[in-house]
């Protein structure tokens, strides 16, 4: 391109960031919510409580599946734990079909809690964007690649990374937005590089399948079977033998993982070749490598099949995948993940705002406002405020929709979608002076009302959570309040900028509230 290397990289940074910025905001917001997927699962099902004894809960769940599916070939129960009050289960029936259910750890039976996708909705949206397979995943991949490119080009555009770290000049219009964008970018630069690259890694064989083709041709079976995995099942013998009590087996496995267990799979229950396979709990280590203990399903004796070692490339892949998922993180680190995500959201938001602020002086000289400027300015509002508002709408629907209605879970996701569409349309219609004030005010109302609605519609409101010492529910309500207060602050700042008469400022105005 014309100009120096740095100039062309700055150009690439601007435009790759602008094109993908709105989509990235939605991906970031749902992604950082997914670090608390288990907690969202819990909050959206206030009828359920985390089990006091997860092992006993798994035993009950297995018993329920076996009792209701005679001759079941194998069954899997994802254990509940202190954060997660539901047991996800699936099984293969005697006829070879598949079944699945969410079970209540208290009873081991399907629960009667409200029908909701819970945290799964944000988790799925994060990489599928409510677009049918495979296109949503491809689009998310394009967004990850564009972000990776934007981070790299942003990096080489900088003259002085270290100095930028300590530079913030508030109240100076464009300069302040740039400083803020830089500080946010540099502060968690390792996170941004890591999260965009590892995002690509999570679905990498979908985005770059050609090396597999180069080495395996069409023979995908050989490719998949060449991953080193220890054998776990034995073929059914046809000889009946009662399943060993699960309690001692699970307790033995849990003793190796801080008293916790992950996913439990029982193959051929009731057969002489039954096997019990206990995976380590997600989050015991960074990497996502499967690690388990295998037991004989009849005697309960531990079997010790040799675990083949995984080479450096696979180990790297496991670790990168685990870094993206962040499930290994304990509370403090999980909050740092969350805050880095919030920082990333703010970095993208300030970058988008910067695009408009930079082009504003020309407009203030009385030049006509081009359509592109108007569109970007209003889409910025729709994405920056609209995505969080849509997430709040999901939680509103979760609390306000009656429990028994048909298609309740879909109605919740519709609430998200319609709120996002509504915000986008509204952002095109509102007078310019009211854009940011209105959007941030709406965001504040949407989030601040949630703890109130929770208190009014369930027995697990903030006050009773605090009284009971229920940290999970209380932190959730307090986080919603904090987001609401942040929106309220932004609305106030925007309002203050808007009521100061034009001309009182030199240069451009932050938050774009003034016409």
């Amino acid at each position: 391109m014309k100009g120096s290397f740095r100039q062309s990289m700055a150009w690439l940074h601007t435009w790759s960031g602008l094109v993908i910025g709105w989509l990235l905001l939605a991906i970031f917001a749902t992604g950082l919510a997914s670090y608390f997927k288990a907690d969202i699962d819990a909050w959206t099902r206030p009828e359920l409580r985390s089990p006091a004894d997860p092992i006993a809960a798994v035993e009950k769940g297995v018993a329920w599946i076996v009792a209701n599916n005679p001759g079941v070939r194998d069954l899997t129960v994802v254990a509940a734990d202190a954060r997660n009050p539901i047991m996800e289960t699936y099984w293969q029936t005697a006829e070879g079909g598949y079944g699945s259910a969410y079970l209540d750890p208290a009873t081991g039976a399907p629960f009667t809690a409200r029908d909701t996708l819970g945290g799964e909705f944000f988790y799925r949206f994060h990489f599928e964007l409510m677009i049918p397979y495979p296109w949503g995943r491809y689009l998310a991949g394009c967004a990850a690649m564009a972000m990776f490119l934007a981070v790299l080009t942003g990096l080489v555009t900088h003259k002085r990374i270290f100095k930028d770290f300590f530079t913030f000049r508030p109240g100076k219009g464009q300069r302040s937005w740039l400083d803020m964008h830089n500080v946010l970018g540099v502060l968690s630069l390792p996170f941004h590089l890591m999260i965009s690259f590892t995002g690509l890694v999570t679905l990498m064989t979908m985005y770059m399948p050609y090396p597999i083709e180069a080495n395996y041709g069409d023979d995908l079976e050989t490719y998949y079977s060449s991953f080193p995995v220890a054998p776990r099942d034995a073929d059914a013998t046809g000889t009946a033998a009662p399943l060993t009590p699960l309690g001692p087996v699970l307790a033995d496995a849990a003793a190796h993982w801080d008293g916790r267990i992950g996913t439990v799979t029982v193959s051929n229950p009731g057969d002489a070749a039954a096997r019990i396979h206990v995976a380590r709990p997600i989050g015991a280590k960074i990497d996502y490598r499967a690690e388990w203990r295998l037991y004989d399903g009849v005697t309960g004796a531990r079997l010790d099949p040799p675990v083949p070692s995984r080479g450096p490339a696979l180990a790297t892949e496991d670790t990168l995948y685990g870094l993206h998922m962040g499930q290994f993180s304990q509370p403090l680190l999980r909050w740092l993940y969350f805050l880095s995500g919030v920082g990333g959201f703010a970095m993208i938001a300030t970058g988008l705002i910067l695009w408009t602020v930079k082009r504003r002086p020309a407009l203030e000289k009385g030049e006509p406002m081009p359509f592109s400027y108007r569109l970007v300015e209003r889409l910025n509002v729709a994405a920056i405020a609209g995505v969080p508002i849509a997430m709040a709408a999901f939680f509103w629907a979760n609390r306000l929709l009656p429990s028994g209605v048909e298609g309740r879970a879909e109605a919740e996701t519709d609430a998200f979608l319609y709120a996002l569409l509504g915000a986008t349309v509204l952002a095109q219609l509102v007078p310019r002076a009211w854009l940011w004030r209105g959007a941030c005010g709406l965001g504040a109302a949407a989030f601040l009302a949630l703890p109130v609605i929770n208190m009014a519609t369930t027995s697990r409101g903030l006050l009773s959570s605090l009284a009971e010492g229920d940290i999970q529910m209380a932190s959730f309500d307090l986080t919603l309040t904090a987001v609401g207060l942040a929106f309220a602050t932004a609305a106030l700042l925007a309002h203050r900028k808007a009521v100061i008469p034009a001309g009182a400022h030199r240069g451009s105005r932050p938050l774009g509230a003034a016409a």
Partner: protein
Amino acid sequence: MAAGSRRGSKPVPFSYRAEVAARLIVGLAGGYALTAWAAMLLARLLPMSRLEATETAILLSFLIYAGLLMTVFAVRRLSVLLIGLTVAGLALAASVWLTHPVAVS
């Protein structure tokens, strides 16, 4: 900013827009094709087991693609860029073809 400064009163010449469009297409499509060939070649030539080489090539491909996209917008003359990418593409595609195993198992 090279392009950011042109706004409002001065219309952007068509040749500039055409060049940006050309680089975009060359970068997105041509860059991906080059990346795929390079990754296929790496998967065959890296001195590791077949599976390890495949996975390493996939992991590296995203860095290669990012590097190519930056190159596509950094090279000053479009003609130099197009010739360079064509030569590199032909060389990579030929190498992939030449390293094709006689019998894919």
